[in-house]
């Protein structure tokens, strides 16, 4: 099992990577031999039989050779059959999820990934899995087709709207790997990049607990602050007044927000809730309508916590209290 990566392949960090790579290299070397044969011979003939100045005459009438023709039909046929059978076997292996696999629900959506863990936790754009344990991904999309691709694991599977698709892997090295969306899904397609974080079993349990955490023993505000990071709001919303993809959250609550359609609205609980669940309903002036919906991802309590957190970022007491 190589984990270093080569000229052709990125490090292979899952159990199937080795199989895929050996087939890849088998085809590669066979191809190189055939290629050298084809190009080498044509180069050699071109040199040897090049037309010397003025020489124009009859050429050799050789026009077939049955033995040769049979050989170059049979040998490639054998080769491709080897490739097929080999590929077939590996494919079967790649397709049958081990019984004891840990099942994670994957949701693809323009343009981020979210993951639901059996313990009840949820994470966005960061898939956390235990090392050396098969993980089954049960995937569906909320809008268009996406595709779940982790080069280091050699797995890829389209994520379809209104239909489940399945893939699995077993990572054997701890680390952080790129997760790409490889089915074109619109503007943010190339930014629909996440991470797969492979951690030790103990660490994983810690994470799972953390993700499933529903704020017991914390104030709503504190919980909101945690979610702000955990659910990736931080990627688009800053709290230091600076602009990012989305409007900053500090001093947001209670103010009059100008909308793209010219009207304006007061930022209160209802508006924030709507912005989270149905972001396209009211677009803030000066911003693109790119915020994803968190419908189904955030639970009520979490939304409340986020609202409390946003509220806490308002310095002007008078706006909060009325």
């Amino acid at each position, binding site marked *: 099992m190589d984990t270093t990566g080569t000229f052709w392949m990125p490090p292979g960090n899952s159990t199937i990577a080795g199989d895929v790579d050996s087939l890849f290299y088998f085809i590669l070397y066979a191809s190189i031999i055939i290629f050298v044969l084809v190009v080498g011979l044509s180069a050699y003939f071109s040199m040897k039989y090049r037309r010397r100045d003025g020489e124009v005459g009859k050429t050799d009438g050789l026009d077939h050779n049955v033995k040769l023709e049979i050989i170059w039909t049979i040998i490639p046929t054998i080769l491709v059959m080897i490739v097929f059978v080999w590929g077939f076997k590996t494919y079967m292996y790649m397709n049958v999820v081990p019984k004891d696999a840990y099942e994670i629900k994957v949701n693809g959506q323009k343009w981020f990934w979210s993951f639901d863990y059996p313990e*009840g936790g949820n994470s966005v754009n960061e898939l956390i899995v235990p090392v050396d344990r098969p993980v089954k991904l049960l995937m569906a999309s909320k809008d268009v087709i996406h595709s779940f691709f982790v080069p280091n694991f050699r797995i890829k599977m389209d994520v379809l709207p*209104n239909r*489940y698709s399945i893939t699995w892997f077993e990572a054997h090295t701890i680390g952080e790997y790129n997760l790409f969306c490889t089915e074109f899904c619109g503007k943010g397609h190339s930014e629909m990049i996440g991470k797969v974080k492979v951690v030790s079993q103990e660490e994983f349990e810690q994470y799972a607990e953390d993700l499933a955490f529903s704020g017991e023993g914390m104030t709503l505000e504190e919980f909101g602050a945690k979610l702000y990071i955990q659910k990736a709001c931080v990627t688009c919303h800053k709290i230091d007044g600076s602009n990012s993809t989305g409007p900053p959250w500090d001093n947001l609550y209670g103010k009059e927000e100008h909308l793209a359609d010219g009207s304006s609205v007061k930022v209160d609980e209802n508006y924030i809730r709507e912005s989270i669940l149905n972001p396209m309903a009211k677009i803030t002036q000066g911003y693109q309508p790119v915020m994803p919906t968190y419908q189904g991802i955030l639970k009520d309590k979490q939304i409340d916590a986020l609202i409390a957190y946003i509220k806490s970022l308002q310095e002007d007491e008078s706006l909060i209290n009325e």
Partner: protein
Amino acid sequence: MSEHTNTGHKEHILPLSLYLGIGSMLLVLTAVTVWVSFFDFGEFNLVVAMIIAASKASLVALFFMHLKYDNKLYAIIFVSSLLFLAVFIIITMFDTLRRDDVYIEKSGPIQKQSLMYDSLKTHSDSTTVVDSLQVKEDTTTVDLNK
């Protein structure tokens, strides 16, 4: 003019009676197919109807379209188009009917039509997939009797 020899110069002029005969056979077959549709052969409904339709179609092609008398090339062309269509249908159905070979979860839509965008279940409370398939059945019927 390599293919000239294949056909006689004189066009076949078929007797009137043949046209009328074939025409009436077609009408009879139409009656038959309507008639048998009142019986239920279960699985074979489709087969029976298609056999009758195919015989009608062959009559039209062979006699009205002169395939029986013309250059065989035309018949080859015609039949090959049907073959390619068959390839299209058969291989596509190899996929569409067998998506759940390995996993039943893949068998069908999660939800009926446009509901999907807002009601796709995220199993934060660890419902198993089979449960959610049940859910699907329910919503479907509920939806239909709305």
